């Protein structure tokens, strides 16, 4: 019983706070982070097959930045807008998880 009391926390649903326990799944949920448009993230886990740009390049919207192989598909990752390559954080042959920042733009 004392253990149970110990686990109770304040939990806000609208304006009122309730004393309650949390589930593991709730505690481990992913917090939402606003996507940064200047960061190119991997949308799927895979391998960087080739890089088509270098740091400092100015690149037009729609140009291929790199090829990401995932599930036996060669995925072209495109430049989302006209800009400059600030930093490349991956190398060819590197395996990346989902949501990995691969390129920073300016």
């Amino acid at each position: 019983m004392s253990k149970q009391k110990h686990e109770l926390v304040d939990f806000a649903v609208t304006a009122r706070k309730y004393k309650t326990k949390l589930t593991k799944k709730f505690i481990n949920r992913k917090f939402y982070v606003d996507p940064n448009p200047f960061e190119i993230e991997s949308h799927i886990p895979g391998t960087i097959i080739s890089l088509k740009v270098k740091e400092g390049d100015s690149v037009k919207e729609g140009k291929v930045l790199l090829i990401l192989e995932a599930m036996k598909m060669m995925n072209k990752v495109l430049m989302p807008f006209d800009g400059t390559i600030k930093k490349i954080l991956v190398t060819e042959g590197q395996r990346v998880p989902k949501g990995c920042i691969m390129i920073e733009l300016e």
Partner: protein
Amino acid sequence: MSLKKNILELRKRKEKVQLGGGEKAIEKQMAMGKMTARSRIMALLDNESFTEYDLFVEHEGRDFGMDKKELHGDGVIIGTGTIYGAPVGIFAQDFTVAGGSLGLMHARKITKIMDHALKMRMPLIGINDSGGARIQEGVNSLAGYGEIFYRNTIASGVIPQISVILGPCAGGAVYSPALTDFVFVVDQISKMFITGPNVIKTVLGEEISMEELGGARVHAEITGNAHFFANSEMECFEQIKKLISFIPWSNTVRAKVFPPKEPKFKGNIEDIIPSDPKQPYDVRDVIKAIVDDSDFLEIQELFAANIVIGFGRMNGQTTGFVANQPLVLAGVLDCDSSDKAARFIRFCNAFNIPIITLEDMPGYLPGVDQEHAGVIRHGAKVLYAYSEATVPKITVILRKAYGGGYIAMNSRHLGADFMFAWPTAEIAVMGPEGAANIIFKKEIEEAEDPDKMRQIKVQEYVERFANPYVAAAKGYVDSVIEPSETRSLLLHAIEVSSHKDDQRPFKKHGIPPF
């Protein structure tokens, strides 16, 4: 004379085939901490009730040297028997024979017992312990899976279907359990996944153990694929027997009625609930104070614990319970708890089991993860399931009934037959704090002491709306009751609705927000 010889020949053949994969394979199975397929059936069914079919079936593999191999019973045992006298159809995959792999004849045996169980209108129990498709038999084994899934679907809602995962169950094989009504898993023994750790590692580079990917605990706590979690096979069989005692054999008969028993709970039911509406309590204590013999069989205890579902008996008659659990996440509805409740409601409706809903919930869980996970379509399942249900539907509002949650939890508006409310019930669009902030926004902002004004206005709202009488004045609540009357009124409600006839327009089927 010659007859005796024939009988001896039969016995000899039986003895050989009943050993499955042979002594060595059996030893291996035991070393893994697993029972054999035959001993599982014996442990689950009533003594000497098992009658086996298709013992002498031989496999159909002709390629890759399979024609020279002997696979006893083709790796699966099927038959019929009884559990507490209730007839059941059963199959158990035999891991000692070619890893319980599914070939054409193996599947034919399973579909045979499925057809039989459906025709005889009796529950079907499938014990899964298989390495998957028998690759040597190619598309024939895929055909086998498909034919099993098809029968699972046809039988769904006609006979109860139970899956017991007592070994690996991977790839296509997992879809048969997923289509059945109740899935049982055992710690360290059950493993379920679509793609195993090896494939995940090769394709995605993610490393994970089999246990963490699809072990019993994962499916009981996180995915919700499993309904009952046990620490041993014997405990699992006891759970299955208990469940069988609660559910009907088919959708055309009622569950067995037991002699009525008063709850074991002695005390005041209202003492379970704290007077401060922000303090939690375990709603299962309320259920146990209501049901016969305080005997409540909880389903999916570890998954989405913010809602409690399960079976109890009211005057001996099986009744389904759906209750918000204030002890966990304040009892909110979210994606998982909505799925959990909706599926259970549909089971009860399909098998003519009355539903009692105990309500104490502050609303839906706020959060980006919930919204992006589709809490709208998940939450809609609860509305759909309650509205669709034509069995007796009874609600008791214990405390909070706010907003969309009030509507969703079997409100009068969704067709509840009886709406009871305790005097502690608060039926409102939202909690008093939130409501006061909106309604009296101007007064609070313009006051010299906004905090004090807020408190006054919250109190004003509490007195005016945080009660059951506004809803009772409209007839949305039939009766505001004393907590101590709850059981007797519920018994009355079930009694008078025993001939309920709720006709709906003809349709092939509805389109629930799956």
